[in-house]
């Protein structure tokens, strides 16, 4: 298999001004990050809360432009698996699915025939036509996941997403995800869970206070992560 670079991050830094001057004037979720994403791989990014994982995904998706360094996209489509981006609680699940699908790059014409599929997959039944405000958290997450399964970008960015809904749906979501991965979907998976990364990823790095720590193999990186956590 030829290994093709999909995304290259070079010396990427993100810095925000602090609103309340406590300690340093800036807070930097990412510092001098160098990372490559290759075609077909599943890259795991481990890190504790606040290590900059989500910021990294936002930089990769292109939504957030880094303050330093460059993000080079080698002509691929990247999209963040955002479960409830832009849900309007007053609208029905169906209407939210239409907009959500369009947001992910479908035209209105393309999304219409998929609505039934989304309804089916989300297991919402008649709730699909009720306003989202009447949904439980799990139901909304299921709808979000169902919408997002309709797309397959070149690079899929996933942020702890597989904890969707109840045990059954979680299994189904996981299975769909696995199937995509099995068929060569390039995935960047961000998680603080070792087990998730261990079972899925070909390669893995740690994000520690905005810096990337890498290692030879997934096993080695997981060991480093273990030490890192226990030393805290």
């Amino acid at each position: 298999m030829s290994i093709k670079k999909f995304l290259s991050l070079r010396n990427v830094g993100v810095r925000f001004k602090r609103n309340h001057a406590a300690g340093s004037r800036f807070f930097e979720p990412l510092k001098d990050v160098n990372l490559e994403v290759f075609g077909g791989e599943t890259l795991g990014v481990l890190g504790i809360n606040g290590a900059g994982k989500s910021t990294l995904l936002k930089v990769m998706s292109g939504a957030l432009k880094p303050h330093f360094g460059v993000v080079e996209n080698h002509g691929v489509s990247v999209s963040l698996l955002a479960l409830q981006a832009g849900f309007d609680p007053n609208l029905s699940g169906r209407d939210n699915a239409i907009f959500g699908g369009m947001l992910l790059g479908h035209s209105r014409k393309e999304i219409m025939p998929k609505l039934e599929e989304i309804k089916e997959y989300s297991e919402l039944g008649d709730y699909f036509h009720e306003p989202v405000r009447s949904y439980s958290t799990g139901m909304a997450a299921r709808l979000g996941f169902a919408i997002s399964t309709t797309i397959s970008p070149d690079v899929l960015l996933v942020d702890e997403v597989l904890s969707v809904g109840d045990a059954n749906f979680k299994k189904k979501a996981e299975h769909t995800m696995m199937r995509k991965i099995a068929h060569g979907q390039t995935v960047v998976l961000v998680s603080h869970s070792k087990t998730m990364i261990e079972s899925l990823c070909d390669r893995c790095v740690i994000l520690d206070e905005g810096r990337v720590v890498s290692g030879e193999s997934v096993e080695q990186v997981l060991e480093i992560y273990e030490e890192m956590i226990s030393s805290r």
Partner: protein
Amino acid sequence: MRQGHCDNAEALLVVAREKFPKNPLTWLISADLAKLQNDEAAEDDILAQGQHVLSARWEIVCRRAELHMRKGDVEAAEALNQLAVQQRGDAIEPLIQAAEFADSLKDWAQSEQRWQAVVALKPDFTRGYLQLASIYKLKGDLLSARRYRLAAKYGANLLEAVPSGAPGGNKTAAVGLTRFSHFLGLVFTKAGLNLKSEASRTYLNYVWVVAEPLLHLVIYYYLFGQILNAGVENYGLFLLCGLVPWMWFSKSVSVSASSIIGGQGLMLNSNLPAVFFPLVSMVQSTLKQLPALAALFVLALLTDSKSLTWNICYLPVIMALQMLLTLTVGMLLAAAVTVVRDLANLVGTGLMLLMFLSGVIYQYQSLPEGVGHWVQYNPLTLLIAAYRTIILEGAAPDAYAMAYVIVVTLVMTVVCAAFYKWQRNNFVRRGMA
């Protein structure tokens, strides 16, 4: 036998073989005993007998193949295995043995083929997937290796094709015009859905969307036009000609002002440009005010015969101009609010002040010299005057005034475009800080 009494065991097995010659188990246990005694010749002998008696039951043939493999006689082993495969019926074990033979001979192509045959017949045979995964890994086909590794863990249907959307989807291919039309589609869909959302909060739903501006219209028309008219002829219609376009402007601007701030979450999770949000606000407010504009038009036709001339054709032009002007004001305000959020609180007051400076409720020409001089530089004043000229007098709007409005609008558009281009990267960052 397990107790180590080989002689006793052998004696028992001889009896067993004579009594139950049709039970393959007796033959297999006998073979095991011979194996335990390291007597390969006896083992082969027993198995050959068993094979003969049971007319080549696969269990025994397999066992014999294994024996030959152990002895290093590959050809004989393979031949026996082939026989077992032919006799196997529904059993999968001979196929597994065939694959294992290929593995032990390091004949990976053969092995791949045979394991594939195994998992094709028995999709939940985990070891088969793992073997295939390691074969693919040896071959350097990491993608297939991963696919089979995952299949071993999550089940065989993982290998089926992904149901929708092949990787490398349509987004990279979408360029230029397609992208633009998709963006517009998104704007209109969102605007429509926002209206729906707004309507869904009330019992009468869409009725309110139409009724609210119309109620305004009726109240002003009767209150000021019929009861409180300050001696101005046809004051009701005069007032509405100012108020309806003004309401359009002010609603659009006030909705736009906080639109980018409100859209931060969406912007972070998708690659929507900031301009999306004021555009949606504009379209949304326009759709909402259209019934009022139409009602004004109908009212004018019904009550005032002067309004029906060819000059009515200027109306869409004036409206388009107003729309563009409103959009630029809304966009600049929305951008300014992201920098200094406090501005959002001033929008309402500012709009009220602007209303008095735009000649909405009076004729700007009737103002005292000092103020009136400045008010005529307000493009909104001129636009409202143009509405009045067209509707009340049925005349063409003042060309110089319109040229001035066009110039102001164009300048604003350029400023707007430049500002958004310059600040493009900062809209999202600000929302996060």
